[in-house]
């Protein structure tokens, strides 16, 4: 999780950010706006990648409303960016859980993964990585983003998504193999 904090690049200095977080926790909306502005790109990018772009703006707003509501419980024993990041991931996952089909996809292993309708793919030999990411099946995309983009470990992903570590590893490999093909490399048995 330390890597997560390092990847966050707030516009404000750490001391100023700490001050603003404290002010925001006491109800200062202006300070909260500065916190929001500093972390918006990071949070929105995380949400956009995990959701494949679907409702990313709305979910990002949900994240910051939740941050405002929960700021009082932030005790400063972890980096604020780490705390915020975990909260954002939880908001996205809760959103997914509202969709009943998702549980089946994640719990029933590769057989069910293979039965999911393949996403629309570009026929271009090489495509933008973000675009390719958005075309992954939901379960594979979530695991890939959490592991390869955000730096979570398989046991953490398993806990967050309520799946086994083995399923997390299988999904990660599936996502990588699909991306490899999407990006113009060889043919994969995972996406046919």
């Amino acid at each position, binding site marked *: 999780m330390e890597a997560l904090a390092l990847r966050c690049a707030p516009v404000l200095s750490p001391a100023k950010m700490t001050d603003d977080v404290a002010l925001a926790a006491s109800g200062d909306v202006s300070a909260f*706006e500065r916190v929001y502005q500093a972390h918006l790109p990071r949070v929105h990018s995380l949400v956009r990648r995990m959701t494949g772009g679907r409702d990313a703006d709305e979910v990002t707003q949900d994240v910051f409303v939740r941050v405002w*509501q929960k700021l009082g419980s932030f005790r400063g024993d972890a980096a604020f960016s780490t705390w915020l990041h975990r909260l954002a991931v939880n908001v996205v996952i809760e959103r997914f859980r509202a969709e009943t089909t998702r549980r089946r996809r994640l719990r029933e292993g590769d057989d069910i993964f293979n039965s999911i309708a393949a996403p629309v793919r570009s026929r271009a030999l090489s495509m933008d990585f973000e675009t390719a990411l958005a075309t992954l099946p939901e379960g594979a995309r979530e695991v890939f983003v959490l592991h*390869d983009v955000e730096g979570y470990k398989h046991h953490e992903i398993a806990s967050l998504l309520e799946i086994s570590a083995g399923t997390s*590893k299988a999904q990660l*490999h599936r996502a990588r193999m699909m991306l490899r093909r999407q*990006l113009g490399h*060889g043919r994969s048995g995972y996406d046919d």
Partner: protein
Amino acid sequence: MTTDAFTDRLSEYLDDELSAEERREVSNHLAVCESCRGTLEELRQVVSRAAALTDSAPMRDLWSGVVARIAPSRQWRERVSPFRRAISSRLSFTLPQLAAAGLTLMVLSGGLVWMARSGNPNADFQAVSAEPDPDLTTIPANFADRHFDEAIADLQRALDAERTKLDPETVRVLEQNLAAIDVAIEQSRRALQADPSNVYLNTHLAAERQRKLVLLRRVTALAMTGS
């Protein structure tokens, strides 16, 4: 182990998550299988590109939607609670203040829109250039913001249900204020139809809509908590 079986282990090999024995088996296979070596290198590139992704902000403003949901929830309650303790269950505003605010709002809104449209040289603010700024991308106002209209309709319904808990005189002044805001919104909308990219007018319209939302939320909250 087949080549496919080795391929399935390549991500774990890459992430160093195999046991020592498994890792040795895969290494031995890689030494003799060019196809798997190629796949491993491609997977390494995928991982590398994922780690190098950069973050970007959304294309549209999201803060106004956030603040509309958070500001009344905490700040207003804190500001209002001492006031509420001092009054009876029959709620009442300070009428001269509300009336003055309504009048001021009406004059200011109309005047500012007029100044923005006419480009009055005596105006004490920087007029927005009529020439499009090539470096500035302006998103035209959304005249039919479904979320805003739904929020207003919900609040209006809630207020109607609780209206009897408010002092009649308070209701009268409240409606005057809402009418003044509606006039300002309508003026801004009309002006924007002629000049959709005018930054000031877009900002003014957003501010008036926000003002209406906040006023309705505050009064509805007061009426509901006053029971």
